[in-house]
């Protein structure tokens, strides 16, 4: 029912029903294309019968040493395809690639602290809140850094929550 394949440029012309949703950001072209040029394995689209775009996931792999990890930049599903675990499938795919191909220690993502439905969903997918990043979103709203350990992190060290919140300056890759 769902075909998941690598995202390609032409999909940018077909994802309007997904991106018109107010929670889905439409980035500039260099953003999408940089992800496509650098991490094509981390950018997938899901299609329904009739080639309708259901949703997509974009991400990357980054970090050094034990913080070598997959990162979910965006995951989104069109309204008509919600409530059927598509986001889960897409997330699992990215986790799989981080785990098996890139041998990363964990996968992480950032979410607005107010976005309760999303936080709940990520928790269901076994992500834990690793730390709070103060005023991460345009200096206004806090972000939550959520993580899920992968098989390489045997002791699951990467997901032990930090006790205090951090500021955006303290982020490793800023």
């Amino acid at each position: 029912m769902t075909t998941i394949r690598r995202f390609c440029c032409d999909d940018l012309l077909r994802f309007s029903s997904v991106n018109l949703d107010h929670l889905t950001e439409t980035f500039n072209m260099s953003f999408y294309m940089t992800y496509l040029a650098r991490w094509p394995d981390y950018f997938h689209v899901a299609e329904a019968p009739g080639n309708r775009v259901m949703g997509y996931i974009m991400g990357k792999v980054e970090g050094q040493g034990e913080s070598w990890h997959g990162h979910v930049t965006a995951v989104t599903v069109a309204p008509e395809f919600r409530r059927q675990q598509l986001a889960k499938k897409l997330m699992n795919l990215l986790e799989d690639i981080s785990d098996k191909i890139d041998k990363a220690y964990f996968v992480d993502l950032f979410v607005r602290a107010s976005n309760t439905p999303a936080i709940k969903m990520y928790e269901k997918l076994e992500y834990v809140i690793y730390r709070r990043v103060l005023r991460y979103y345009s200096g206004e709203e806090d972000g939550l850094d959520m993580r899920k350990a992968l098989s390489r992190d045997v002791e699951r060290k990467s997901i032990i929550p930090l006790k205090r919140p951090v500021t955006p300056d303290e982020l490793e890759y800023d």
Partner: protein
Amino acid sequence: MPFDFLLFWKLLHFFWLIVSASRLLFNIVAVLKKGEDIRILDDANFYTKTGILQIEQIFPIVQSPKSPNSKQSLTPVCVYSRFQLRYLSFNKERLPPSYPRSRFLAVAKNPRYSIMASKFGMAGGIPERRVRPVWDAIDSRQFKNALKLSTTLLSKYPNSSYALALKALILERMGKLEEALSVCINAKDLLYKNDLILIDDLTLSTLQIVFQRLDHLDMATSCYEYACGKFPNNLELMMGLFNCYVREYSFVKQQQIAIKMYKIAGEERFLLWAVCSIQLQVFCGNGGEKLLQLAEGLLKKHIASHSLHEPEALSVYISLLEQQAKYGDATEVLSGNLGSLIMIEVDKLRIQGRLLARAGDYGGAADIFQKVLTLCPDDWECFLHYLGCLLEDDCSLPMVANSPLIQVSTSMDCQHRHLTDDVFDSRISRASEFVEKLKSEAGSDSIRNPDLANLEIERRKIIFGKGNYDKLMEDLILFFTRFGHLACFSADVAVFLQILPDDRKKQLLEKLAKSIDSSSTSSKNVLGQHLTLFKIRELIGDMFPLPEGDLVGFAVQMTEMYCENLPLSKDLDVQESMYGEEFLSMTCNILVQLFWRTKHIGYLLEAIMVLELGLTVRRYVWQYKILLLHLYSYWNALPLAYERYKSLDVKNILLETVSHHILPQMLTSPLLVDISDLLKGYSRFMDEHFKESADLTFLAYRHRNYSKVIEFVQFKERLQRSSQYLTAKVEGSILNLKRNANSIEEAESVLESLNFGSDFLDVSNEIQSKKLTFNEDLQLRPWWTPTYDKNYLSGPYESMSKYPRENLRNDVKQTESKVTRTIEKRSLLPRLIYLSIQCASSSVKGNSVINGIDSKHSSELKSLLESYSKYLQLPFHDAVELLISVSNGQKPLEVLTSNLIDWMNFAVFLNAWNLNSTESNNSDGNTFRMNWELVCSLLEQSVSSKIKTAKPLGSSPGIDVSILVQLVTEPLTWHGLIIQSCVRSSLPSGKKKKKGGGGHSDQSNTQLSNSIKNSILSLHKMIDEVTKWLKEQIEKPVDGDVDILLSSINCEQNNDVGGPGKVVKILERLVSSVDDVEVGDRICQAVKSWKAVDVARKMVTAQGTALTEFCNVCESKMKVLQGLKLQI
């Protein structure tokens, strides 16, 4: 022991060298200014969380045994900032083993972050500490100060091209483009003169950036070409040159330089750069397919000696073979050692299956696809491939690799290979058994593929003539009971419904309805099933033939269901979609259909009310916004439509796919400022992409994602050929002329910026060979306007058995050819205007015959008019004849109304040409000519007829005010420009004095000036007539219009069976009875804030605003005409 100072110093120096060297060899010191968007294009992993770091290149320099010279390119790399220093080390895991990890080179896009020290502490041959203040000033945008500092720097280093390049960069940032270019060219000349040991890369990259920003890619390229010529075998410079060719899309040169690099370094990636460049020649250039053979040969040779190390390299190799139809070879490669490069098993299987199918080995391919399905049981496309291979059916066979849009056709006109009955039966039963197996393995998992697969099998059986509708319906009902609550259900099964005969469709509907009653699932699921049932009804066109009363019944039922189910959404976050949201869109669809049928505006108003209430409850529903923007556009409340459009936050690539909802209406509206903003925003986005696209392509090269290289170039070409982009360019220029037409000088300067309209002539000539692309996403348009040039509501009601969406494919084709023709035609306008102004002016001067340029203008205008008449679908002479017979009343104006604006534009330009031409334009030699009087008569007739048929906007939705707007802003405006040109030339001031002399000329000039005077009066009268009508509309009290609107939905006046008002009644009941305990505080407050009267008032106000804008345009024109009257 005495302290040996010298020894100590030597030791210290030695130690320092080791430390520095190791730092340079193992780390890159990158300096990222905080908050700046920085992108590192390297093989390692240093990017920001929030964005991507922006440095153009960091690449490994390989010291090849073949070229000891390349040692030179072990440039120390140091990128720094006063804000933040960050040491970055390369992550070993991401690098292929073949690369020595120690040698890297970084080139920053912004030279601020570039290799600041080609030699230690040196920047472009100047001590870095002297350059730093200049950069600091640039960084803080103190360009004046930066310029001063750079002048000082230049006085100390007059022979430094780097210092000059910096100055050019500052000038460019200050917007002094010409000066920047000349300084940059000086820097380039200096670079050529300086006999340096090594051409400094920082200087080169700085020059490159400035040249690129000044649109002189060729000069940047020649700098690198020069450097490469001077220092052959320097890989660093060669990569820079390769990048230049990528920017210029010079595929052949890309290939040549890549091959050179490959020969020097022997590296796999350079070979693949060359191979990609070859593929680009074949797919995007004019290279023949034979080149692919060459590429294949190159790869084969390399594989024999070095094998391949990158998965993408293998993909390229396979695609090369596939493109040459060497499927067998490709399969062999994939199943050999190289196949292990593809690490995801299903990916490999998919390629294998595709290759087998394309080679005609359907059995083998089916086996492979079966394996994929076992691993990914929910993969619908794979199932179609599987079934396609089993049944040897062309439609569902996999397409060529890298064909980005894999369209699996679901239509019935597939080419079936002729399987015998027995073979067909056995293949089908194999498929059925396999699907059963998948189903049992899936268990309670919510995957839908096996169920859907069963439906597809039944469908294929029916197509083959061995199916049975009962079975298909049975399966559909089963599928419905499991998944009918999902929002996508109806779209999923659309293809299966299509195959059922009409009576079966009706039966199915009844059965589905019954199956809801008997189900005992949760209320949310029941709600979902009801929604699906309505959607299926909509889909099969069940509602079109129903009597009005029944349709009203459905609308009422759906609105009630929306209201009743609000409590289900009580605890939802405002961001989440609510249960039953779609009921309101569907109610709107029915109400609009009722309006189309009965022409009762109440229904249309109700449609708006329903959606507005929905938006009050949850303001994020884009589906409502799109429907509303079309309804408001139709009802001439364009400012409100535009507001709804803006709330969709359409930006970036969505501008290309979503703007069609608003652009066409706006282009013919009086909202000149808004449309100008829209066009500018869109063009800016496209132009920016075209500028940066090549750099992104190079990024793909850098990261060895070769398939993306081809994809990016093809995508850029697709956008460049976008019909909407071309429309925006042409219409933007015409708009600019419209907005500046009150002053002929300003209009002329606009024309000058358009190369006097000549550039667009080329557009017009080349358009047919250009193969325009149409990237608009039309799927989201409402049913009544499936494409942007079609609106069913404007025509008479036709009973349809299906929703008009069924005809979409045909409509789209028609629209596409129409759009192409329109661009072709509209591209002629700027030049026509320019030439008309010229001819008008020389007619007054009376020098048409004497001056060669003038007669050239005249004959060009004639030939353009001949081209233009093509769009009137008449030969030139016939068109002239028709116009003249309309103007003198022999024929009615109605013969021109199908494209009135084109006819009137033609008449206006024809007059301008006639002014200056002695040539008779009638084939039989009669002296029937267009003249001032006739043009005015035509324009007057057009304006009057439009005003006569105009009605008050409130009570007559769909009335086409845009024709009147276009009359005023186009033919009347162009005519006004021609008059201005004549008046200016006739002024006896200074040099403008007429040169012709002689009594005859004087006499004819008096005649001319009388005609012009009369024309001014006539034009004034026309616009005055429009203004009066507008004022009459604007000055009507809003309340009166609101009352008229509201009375249209007053239920009491309507009969029991049908009639508008019933849906609004439900909404009003909801407002008065909503209970916060039931629906929650948020929804309750929102519902309570909604008032029907507010909706009506907002619309009437918006209609008034649009008319006021139009009135302002008219009044400004009248002022200009007053002025002209005094001048002559």
